[in-house]
């Protein structure tokens, strides 16, 4: 399997170890964003995507997740 973001080999799952860690951080941090701003998942992803403090790999994963969700939505509609 290759990483959905950078094409590197993955040990397991969709992401390489670098992007997998970024993905974990994204999932973990959502709790704090939700608590603080009552923000839905999609808006959260957009917020971190445009935030200049977000790390490069986390931004790439956020972008992938946004695109992926859009694709999923297109399919269902």
């Amino acid at each position, binding site marked *: 399997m290759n990483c959905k973001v950078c094409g590197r080999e993955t040990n397991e799952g969709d992401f390489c170890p*670098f992007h997998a860690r970024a993905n974990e*951080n994204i999932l973990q941090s959502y709790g704090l964003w939700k608590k*603080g701003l009552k923000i839905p998942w999609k808006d959260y992803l957009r917020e971190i995507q445009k935030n200049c403090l977000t*790390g490069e790999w*986390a931004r790439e994963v956020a972008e992938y997740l946004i695109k992926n969700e859009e694709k999923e939505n297109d399919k269902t509609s």
Partner: protein
Amino acid sequence: MAKYTLIVTEKPDVAARIAAALDMEGKPSRLLEHGVPYYEATRDKNLVVVPALGHLYTVASDKKGSEYPVFEFKWVPLYLAERGAKRTRVWLQTIAKLAKNADAFIDACDYDVEGSIIGYCILKYACGGKEADAKRMKYSTLTKEEVQESYANALPSMDFNLIESGLARHEVDWLYGVNLSRALTQAAKKHTGRYTTLSTGRVQGPTLKFLAVREKTIRSFVPTPYWTVTATVHIGNTILEVPHEKKAVETKNEADAIVKACKGKKGKIERIETKKFLVPPSPPFDLGSLQNEAYRLFKYTPMFTSKVAQRLYLDALISYPRTSSQKLPPTIGYKAILQKLAKNREHGNRARELLGKPELKPTEGRSLDPAHPAIYPTGNLPERLLDSAQKNIWNLVVRRFMAVFGDPAVEETVKASVGINGYKFLLEGRETLEEGWLHLYTPYTHSTDAPLPRMVEGQEVNVEKVASHREFTRPPPRYNPSSLLKRMQRQNLGTKATRAGTIQTLYDRKYITEQRMVTSNLGFEVVNVLQKHCPTLLSSTMTAELEEKMGAIQEKTETRANVVNQAIETLKPVTDRLKEKETAIGEQLSRVLMKAEQDERTIGACPSCKTGNLIIIHSRKSGKRFVGCTNYFTGACKTAFPLPQRGVVKPLGVNCKGCGSPTVQVWTKRKRPWKLCLNPDCPLKKGGGKPA
């Protein structure tokens, strides 16, 4: 010439100083043998002072070639092991020739592990086994008085325990370095067919790991929001921004609630707490703290500071800089140094002020170095014009030396709490009441004074505004040369003399880039390979264990041979595993090497077709280089720019301010690097220059 004492020094400048200090008339004869300088001096007997050029011997493999694993080694002249060290051959021949007529020998190399090894190897190998008979000069400055004193009271022999532990360190480091570096380099070469030097080692590996771990944290960082609430209050005629006692409010609702409750209400000073405390001077400089301070003040890299300090030491302006001591023993003569400094226009007033004190007692730090005291000025004033970096470092050493004799500064902090409708806001002020040593260290101190206006408990204050601000958590900062050096010191990685060089090697190998260190993909991949196949080599505990063993050798509870054999036994399974996985490792490393090469060639997006990239291309026909679009090969875009044919060209990653075309930096020998806009018709070039 009759029989003489041969004095061996570490560097030519030191030989000149020592010869001048020891000659009765201060005028030794400078002679040359095949371009190698040496000095004849007369004192109680004839003396010949001959310099080395740093290390003249090194550890090398018994066999030729670059195969690994290699566990057999010997000490050989440097010119046999390193291509760039040819001139050390005549150096050794000259020393050997001078040794023949000598009837006594003195090792006068720097008094530390490296200096001792340099002297030991020369006396053993070049002078024909004179190491056991040689005396040892011990000095921390190159002033005339100290050199004469160290000659008159030379130690009867060299410190062989120290030398044994130093030799063991060199041998172990060589075993790790050569085997692991060859494993990486050959794996990549076998896959790509091209040679790229990849290196790692006992110190380099763990250091790179620190950087990679930090970089991973930064790149996968997700900021989270929090809120701060501040009240703008009037106290007398002063308007102050006072933060809420909770520095980070977790939810917007809570922050809004505080703002709502406090808006339009009056405040009251509820409690004032005043605290006076003494701030003692910072301890005198060891090499690490000098490097850190020079980075903070002048942005000099540790390597650069080390070089400048070494130059000042050779000029007898400061004491030996490669020390880890923060102690200044009275034997260095505080008063005499200050009396000499009192003659200097810049430092005279402060020196005289200190001389007026009834007692001179320095504030000292904890670290101790048995070989040398902390870095201090000798009191000698510059005999030549110092360049700006030398002047900066000398002034810094002088000021720090004077500051340690200063009285503690007296500072006062005031903490006041302002209550607004049941919510607490906290005010903090700080003021220096007595400057003490701070003025001796000016201009290198930065004032943190922020005094508060007068107020009393129970006083009512007007609240002009209460507002909340959304903030975000921040990733940890990237290491810079100074903070990385501190981390290496804390982890006991490398020695004071080698740390700066290790950092430089990481840059040279392109494992890291930029001053705020960014780990490159190649750096990540090297760490990944080592982590996967030999994780123990990345752990700093291994280094700590080795340090313990070095200490044990010095105390004679361990032997050099044992320590080296243990290192070989640790390395054997590692090199076997690396060999076994060579193809996979080669593939892994080659991928990033090729990507790095590609990135180095890529200038930026093509301004004409917008879909291709501009890259540096070498024409097979003419052999010349130019910049062309990647779409050229499909015939879709013919954009091309000329490039200078000499020097190294690096993409700058920014576009020209004048015309928006990509820019590069050109590095040519003996010239300052210059920026070049690729567009030959750039309007900024019309003045005749080459601005980007």
